[in-house]
């Protein structure tokens, strides 16, 4: 297991390096400069500022300086936010994003598993029909549409929640709901399909033959076996949540990391773009690693083949 982890971490570092390099060069291809009122600047002013930010050097040299800095844990300083270090900037904006992301993930996958399981157990009844209908609805409606609708009805009309801004748990509820619907619908659909399969398998028949009641059978045997494939979609779902949160954060004016990402791209804030890309990639790869480990915990057959591989 340790050996496996070390291997995975080495891959992670390598992948991060590749992501950093590719992003660096692609970013340089973007039109414009980091300066807001470029056309009013004289050639001299531009030269001085380029020198100050190190943008006058050849691109390869800039790349080298950046990578060396990165290896020392230095993500550079932001152009747009008063020369704050990028790392500090990310950290200060991280909490709200992580909170709504994690809440949406837990709520979405948890309810999704439950809904899918109930739909499978009550297959071909009205319960199943209703669950399937809402799953399809949840997958079809983009989260930003939902966010605006929630905002309008629950916050503006009914005044149950704050309309926007970031002020404690109550203001995290609507964005969480908006973000949770897609993962909920996806998990429910997956869970239902898988559970229907599992429920018709021989070991479920045997579990019933042992004298388990219907719910005991589901709890002890069907749930865990149905969750094996569901775990695989949690990774991609987390990615969707991360990218999806950009827009939703904007709608609710949450000072999150997604909002900052958009701003930094708009203003060509190179160090912030780089820092955030690397950070996102890192988060993503950690999630995938966690999912893989989770997979092994749920399915003993995978655990063994891992042992065999080492």
């Amino acid at each position, binding site marked *: 297991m340790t050996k496996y982890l070390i291997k995975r971490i080495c891959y992670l570092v390598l992948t991060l390096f590749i992501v950093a390099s590719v992003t660096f060069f692609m970013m340089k291809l973007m039109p414009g400069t980091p300066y807001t009122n470029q056309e009013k600047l004289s050639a001299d002013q531009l030269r001085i500022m380029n020198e100050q930010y190190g943008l006058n050097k050849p691109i390869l040299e800039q790349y080298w300086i950046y990578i060396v800095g990165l290896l020392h844990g230095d993500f550079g300083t932001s152009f747009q936010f008063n020369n704050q270090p990028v790392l500090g900037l990310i950290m200060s904006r991280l909490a709200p994003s992580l909170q709504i992301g994690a809440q949406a993930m837990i709520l979405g996958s948890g309810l999704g598993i439950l809904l899918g399981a109930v739909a499978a157990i009550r297959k071909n009844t009205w319960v199943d029909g209703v669950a399937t209908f809402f799953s399809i609805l949840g997958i079809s409606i983009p989260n930003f549409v939902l966010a605006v609708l929630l905002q309008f009805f629950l916050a503006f009309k009914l005044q149950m929640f704050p309309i926007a801004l970031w002020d404690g748990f109550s203001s995290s509820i609507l964005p969480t709901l908006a973000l949770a619907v897609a993962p909920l619908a996806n998990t429910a659909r997956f869970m239902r399909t898988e559970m229907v399969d599992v429920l018709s*398998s*021989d*070991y479920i*028949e*045997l*579990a*019933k*033959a*042992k*004298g*388990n*009641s219907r719910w*005991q059978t589901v709890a*002890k*045997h069907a749930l*865990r*076996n149905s969750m*094996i494939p569901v775990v695989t979609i949690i990774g991609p779902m987390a990615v969707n949540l991360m990218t999806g949160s950009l827009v939703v954060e904007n709608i609710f004016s949450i000072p999150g990391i997604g909002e900052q990402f958009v701003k930094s791209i708009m203003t060509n804030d190179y160090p912030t773009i780089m820092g955030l890309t690397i950070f996102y990639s890192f988060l993503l790869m950690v999630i995938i690693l966690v999912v893989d480990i989770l997979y092994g915990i*749920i*399915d*003993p*057959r995978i655990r*063994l083949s891992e042992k065999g591989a080492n």
Partner: protein
Amino acid sequence: MANILEVKNLSIDFKTYAGDVHAIRDVSFELKKGETLAIVGESGSGKSVTVRSIMGLLASNAQVKGGTVKYHGDDLLKKPEKEMNQIRGNEISMIFQDPMTSLDPTMPIGKQVAEPLLIHKAMNKEDAMKRALTVLDLVGIPNAKERMKDYPHQFSGGQRQRIVIAIAIVDYPQVLIADEPTTALDVTVQAQIIDLMKELQRKIETSIIFITHDLGVVAGIADRVAVMYAGKIIEYGLVDEIFYQPKHPYTWGLLNSMPTLDTAGKLEAIPGTPPDLLDPPKGDAFAPRNPYALQIDTEEMPPFFEVSKTHYAATWLLHPDAPQVEPPAAIKTLMAKYDEVAPQKVGQTDGKG
């Protein structure tokens, strides 16, 4: 000998889009304490459906049209689900056909074997695990103690079937239903499993209903045999009576198509296919495939004719007015052997009960 289980006039339909399939048509049999009853028949003859109805594990589109399944005098078909749960895996348990898919892939086998004890007996986890270990030893899992925490995929097919058997017997059931327990195994392992079941039957004094389409297996384990065709029992009797004095042409066909040491050249087969049970024939369902069929076979269902006190067959050929027919040569050879084999064997069977 007391009857532990009595199935009477059982009829079961399956609802399908094409209509109602009459899978079980008026089936009656009884199981005596300590005996092994084999139910033989080809695929689709209704063997599995019959035993599943005893367990209360019928598919959701199955409908019991009539009849009773009496266990110690109580009709199992009328029992509420809650009471059935207490009987299943406790007093009546079942061994399934395919050991590769019958075990939960994500649960250690020790826990799976102990599960019926935790459900039915007021046993704590530790005692249940101990008993599970004893039973795993009993069914012949090597190093059972170390392997309790292993998962099904770490065992071979034969070992998995032993584990499935361990699950079925861990509560010392009164009735053990084995639904083709050896079909998915290769022949040498089959023999081991049969021997194991016979040994276990002696040790825990259970009655067994053994379902199979393999007559060789029947000869090795059964006391009595019921032959099923198209949802009906068409002949039943002591194992030697069925093997050496068969009366129904379908039983002849089955025995004739079983390879023996004397089989030379081509293996015989029964021509044709079983009837469509959406619309079962009026008379004897086997008539269209039966070279000995009489006119009446297509018109009226034959009743059971008594051959001996223990042997009955539903064929018009046994009617006093029926013409004498010559069974196939291979069957005649078998019949000739009856006198030398049977009397002493029949005595043995009686002694057992």
